[in-house]
């Protein structure tokens, strides 16, 4: 579904991503884990078109998208739930969700929007209760739900999420991860970027470890979960201490 080959990108003179190569198959949940500043957000911004790739190729459904602007990439079926939610704060919850359906309007699929609206309200009943509230007045967790709902309205084949669990309480995180699993069950493909490596690897099929702009490790979720280095660096388990006990 998505194939990234030797992609480099960055900001101004700063090169953040160095020769990234990875792929995501249809129906998978793939997670990218990495420390602060590793370049996870930069990678997602590059794939979604917000910053152009400097070199390498990004193929989505066999189509080169490395040089396309974000508005075109969304139409192809690749949506991003950006870091920090980025809801339209001065607009109502419903307006936010309907704006997410804009690609559907343009594809002349306006008739499906009602069903899609019911579907995301089914996933996030809280949003339906708050339909008329301004998005900026929602709680952090509700804003995250709204951001996901907005992205889903475009009916993406691939949905990329940038740290959906950031700043949320454990219970809310659990809800959101349940939804991600449910999305895969309904045929979506998910690229999940997380600091919360344990939870992310818990639901993912495969994972990549990103460090200072390079992929340093990849494998199935189970392999990564049992890998000693991953455990030490990202799962917060101090093996040396355990060993001496």
């Amino acid at each position, binding site marked *: 579904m998505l194939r990234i080959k030797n992609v480099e990108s960055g900001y101004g003179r700063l090169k953040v991503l160095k020769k990234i190569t990875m792929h995501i198959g249809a129906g998978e949940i793939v997670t990218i884990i990495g420390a602060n500043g590793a370049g996870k957000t930069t990678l997602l911004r590059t794939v*979604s*078109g*917000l910053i152009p790739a400097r070199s390498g190729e990004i193929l989505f459904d066999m189509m080169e998208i490395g040089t396309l*602007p*974000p*508005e075109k990439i*969304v*139409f192809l079926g690749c*949506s*991003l739930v*950006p870091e920090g939610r*980025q*809801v*339209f*704060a*001065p*607009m109502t919850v419903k*307006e936010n969700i*309907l*704006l*997410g359906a*804009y*690609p559907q*309007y*343009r594809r002349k699929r306006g008739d499906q929007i009602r069903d899609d609206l019911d579907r995301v309200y089914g996933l996030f009943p809280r949003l339906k209760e708050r339909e008329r509230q*301004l998005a*900026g*007045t929602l709680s952090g967790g509700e804003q995250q739900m709204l951001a996901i709902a*907005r*992205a889903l309205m*475009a009916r993406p084949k691939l949905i990329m999420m940038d740290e959906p669990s950031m700043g949320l309480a454990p219970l809310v995180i659990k809800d959101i991860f349940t939804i991600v699993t449910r999305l895969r069950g309904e045929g979506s493909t998910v690229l999940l970027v997380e600091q919360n490596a344990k939870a992310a690897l818990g639901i993912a099929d495969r994972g990549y470890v990103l460090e200072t702009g390079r992929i340093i490790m990849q494998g199935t979720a189970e392999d990564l979960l049992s890998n000693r280095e991953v455990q030490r660096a990202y799962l917060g388990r101090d093996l040396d201490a355990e060993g001496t006990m």
Partner: protein
Amino acid sequence: MLGGMTAVTLNQFIPLPLAILAAVVITMIVGAIIEIVFIRWLHKPSVLRMVIITIGISILIRETALHIWGESVRALPYFTGSSVSSINLGGVYISSQILWVVGIGALVVAALTAFFNLTMLGRQMRACSANRDAARLCGINAGNMVTLSFMVSAAIGALGGCIICPITYVQYDSGTPLAIKGFTVAILGGLGNSTAAVGAGMILGILESFSIWVLPTAYKEAISIAILLAILFVKPSGIFGSAEAARLKEF
């Protein structure tokens, strides 16, 4: 100014309603051209930079207008009646043109409110102003929305110029004081709130008219600047805006 002048010129050849319509359309096109030529290629321009560029362009337009139309003062005819006729409203005599100004102003505000709140295009524009990147991630072409916003404001400006110029007359440089007043009223009402802007406009008008009791008439024009500064220092969210709403304000 551009709208008024164009309408006056066109009105020599075609009837008044058509001349106004054509002037509005022409000004809209000029607005779009300005955006495409001067603004669009800027990479993430700051608001301040855009303001400075637009002031520069307004000087350019004024000088061009001076070349085309000269310094002479012109006006459109009254839409109904004439400059001496008036209508008796409950004992108060007012010129019929004033009613046109108020009526069309109310219509424009209503139309704008409906446009921004009820149409997909209006919502797209609000989304772009609220969060440009997020709007692009929804598939909205943010560049086109900026062009459109220039066209809408140019059209409103032109229409406004046409409906007041029978009363105030129009000249190559009559745009600037109006722009200052417009900006004051917008700030006074709280940016992005067209209904409050109307209220603010009334307040400014009344203040200006009564100022001649206490100040020499020459200072009348300075009132709006003084208010503008005062508001910016004291309550940047506008007198009708609450601080809470200002935090979520759309510009």
